[in-house]
């Protein structure tokens, strides 16, 4: 049994082509988003400079996990982990959590040692509004690695003087 007669199939094809024609408007959006993620937001730059003292920050190694939609900015679960052998010679020494639009950009500074086993932290943060959160890891060799996540916040954590 055929599910579609030939003219129904043609209609589907036409619809498909029409949808495809709309794609040029839709497609560049994710690409732009990715491009903007490679550059740290302006508001983070001073804090980042103070942390790195001018050293280069590369992407990779560190993984930041936050739900894309945070309904309540007062309590946003967050997990950050870094790939590292965590030996005395090669371990993660510091992880910085930075926010783009909170009144204070530095959320937390967390220090690890070779005794930590894994460079991993789970906590809950406050977010003032929809923004990007940046995690920066400083290795024992002095190199910096970062990851960025975009979060949509529907209810702000800042009710006064944001």
């Amino acid at each position, binding site marked *: 049994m055929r599910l579609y007669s030939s003219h129904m199939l043609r209609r589907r094809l036409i619809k498909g082509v029409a949808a495809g024609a709309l794609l040029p408007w839709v497609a560049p959006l994710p690409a732009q988003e990715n491009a903007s993620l490679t550059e740290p937001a302006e508001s983070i730059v001073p804090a980042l400079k103070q942390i790195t003292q001018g050293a280069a920050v590369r992407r990779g190694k560190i993984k930041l996990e936050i739900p894309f939609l945070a309904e309540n900015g007062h309590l946003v679960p967050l997990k950050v982990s870094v790939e590292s052998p965590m030996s005395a010679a090669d371990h993660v020494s510091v992880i910085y959590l930075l926010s783009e639009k909170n009144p204070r950009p530095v959320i937390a500074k*967390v220090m690890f040692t070779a005794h930590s086993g894994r460079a991993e932290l789970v906590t*809950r943060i406050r*977010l003032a509004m929809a923004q990007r959160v940046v995690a920066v890891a400083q290795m024992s060799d002095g190199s910096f690695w970062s990851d960025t996540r975009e979060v949509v916040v529907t209810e702000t954590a*800042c009710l006064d003087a944001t």
Partner: protein
Amino acid sequence: MSIARLQVPSQAKRGEIIDIRVAIQHPMETGFRRNNLGQAIPKNTINNLVCRYNGVEVFRAEMGSGIAANPYLQFTIVADTSGNIELDWVDDAGEKGSASAAIQVVA
């Protein structure tokens, strides 16, 4: 005096990576809020938390107003000797708190 809950497995194998979970009852005042008289409530967050394993520092967290009220932290350490896991923290008002748990390491 802040109330805290520290969760550490009571027993672990030597070399095992164990989870340390801590939740502290603390308002983590941002310093941006006002009371009902319109006066600013001063910032008061736990600015320093140290975890020591048998007296050796293994983890430290400096937290600001970006950490949610009643801070919760979960991190790991390598269990290598039986002993104590101690947590000490201090907030902006100078109030100190601590929690500790014993761990037994079996071969």
